[in-house]
């Protein structure tokens, strides 16, 4: 058995096993680590296929950026907010396994039965390798293809990335940011406790309710006669009318 076959089977076995580990691991952090392992092996497969640039891009983009992002989100999200790890109903589990097996059968038949319809760029592998080497390597050849044949899709994909990042920032922006600014401004100009007006019985969702006016205090709602209190700390509660 030649060496490349042995290496392929080793890499493929680790790849499939770590992918299975992603699905069955109890801890989401373990899933992420398994996914990193799987992606490293996929990068090795890419190297075997002669796509060196994509192998490096795979490692940088997936394990370097996306998986770190996933780990950040894992740390940010409260683990109690996520459902029980194997909380799927048994019906769901069996249906999932059955559908997977059926799809595996179909894809296996399709792969073994297929006939490639397509134009070969160069007749044989050796000549293709020579052409790529003539340009200077896989990265240079890919760059030439991207900037000549696929120039417009390349620009469009940069637009997609920009819009995606802006959308992500807008989605993840905390709601309370605006409210905190509002409260601080109100503290300076109004003479009410915590700077809020009377008609605010409860705070935003998940926070403690805002304290109403202290009992016995004479507060004129909306009037002009209240004292102006300059509070340095927005959470400081000035006592009005009682001392």
């Amino acid at each position, binding site marked *: 058995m030649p060496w490349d076959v042995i290496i392929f089977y080793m890499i493929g076995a680790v790849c499939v096993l770590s992918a299975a580990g992603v699905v069955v691991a109890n801890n989401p952090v373990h899933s992420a680590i398994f996914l990193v392992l799987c992606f490293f092996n996929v990068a090795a497969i890419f190297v075997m296929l002669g796509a060196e640039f994509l192998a490096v891009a795979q490692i940088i983009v997936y394990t370097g950026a996306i998986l770190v992002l996933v780990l950040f989100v894992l740390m940010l999200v409260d683990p109690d907010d996520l*459902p029980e790890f194997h909380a799927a109903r048994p019906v769901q589990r069996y249906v999932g396994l059955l559908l997977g097996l059926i799809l595996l059968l179909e894809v296996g038949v399709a792969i073994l039965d297929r006939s490639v319809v*397509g134009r070969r760029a160069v007749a*044989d592998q050796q000549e293709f390798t020579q052409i790529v080497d003539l340009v200077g390597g896989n990265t240079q050849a890919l760059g030439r293809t991207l900037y000549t044949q696929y120039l417009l899709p390349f620009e469009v994909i940069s637009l997609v990335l920009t819009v995606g990042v802006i959308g992500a920032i807008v989605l*993840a922006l905390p709601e309370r940011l605006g409210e905190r600014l509002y409260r601080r401004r109100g503290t300076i100009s109004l003479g009410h406790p915590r700077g809020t007006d009377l008609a605010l019985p409860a705070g935003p969702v998940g926070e403690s309710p805002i304290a109403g006016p202290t009992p016995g205090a004479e507060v004129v709602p909306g009037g002009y006669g209240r004292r102006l209190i300059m509070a340095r700390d927005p959470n400081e509660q000035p006592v009005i009318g009682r001392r």
Partner: protein
Amino acid sequence: MGEIGVNHFLFLSAALFIIGMMGVLIRRNILIIFMCVELMVTAANMSLIAFGWELNSLQGQSFALFTIAVAAAEAAVGLAIIIALSRRVRTPVDVDEMRTLRD
């Protein structure tokens, strides 16, 4: 099986894709589902590169590069949605219970 052919890579890619699909169907943790989707995208990438390798062309690799970029954008938006959900919804984020994206 002396020589290594494109079918080997296609079967490996199919195995990865199906494992990812099973993960999406079986698990209910939204982050695991997200990682399984990434796994499926990577499997599709491997198919593209394998076909390009068989046809001696660079088109497969170009398409795989575009796919990686789209997957990166999808990851950013998906994780932002997860953060927004966990911030707004007080109950546990269960993918079976999620029906709306509004408050």
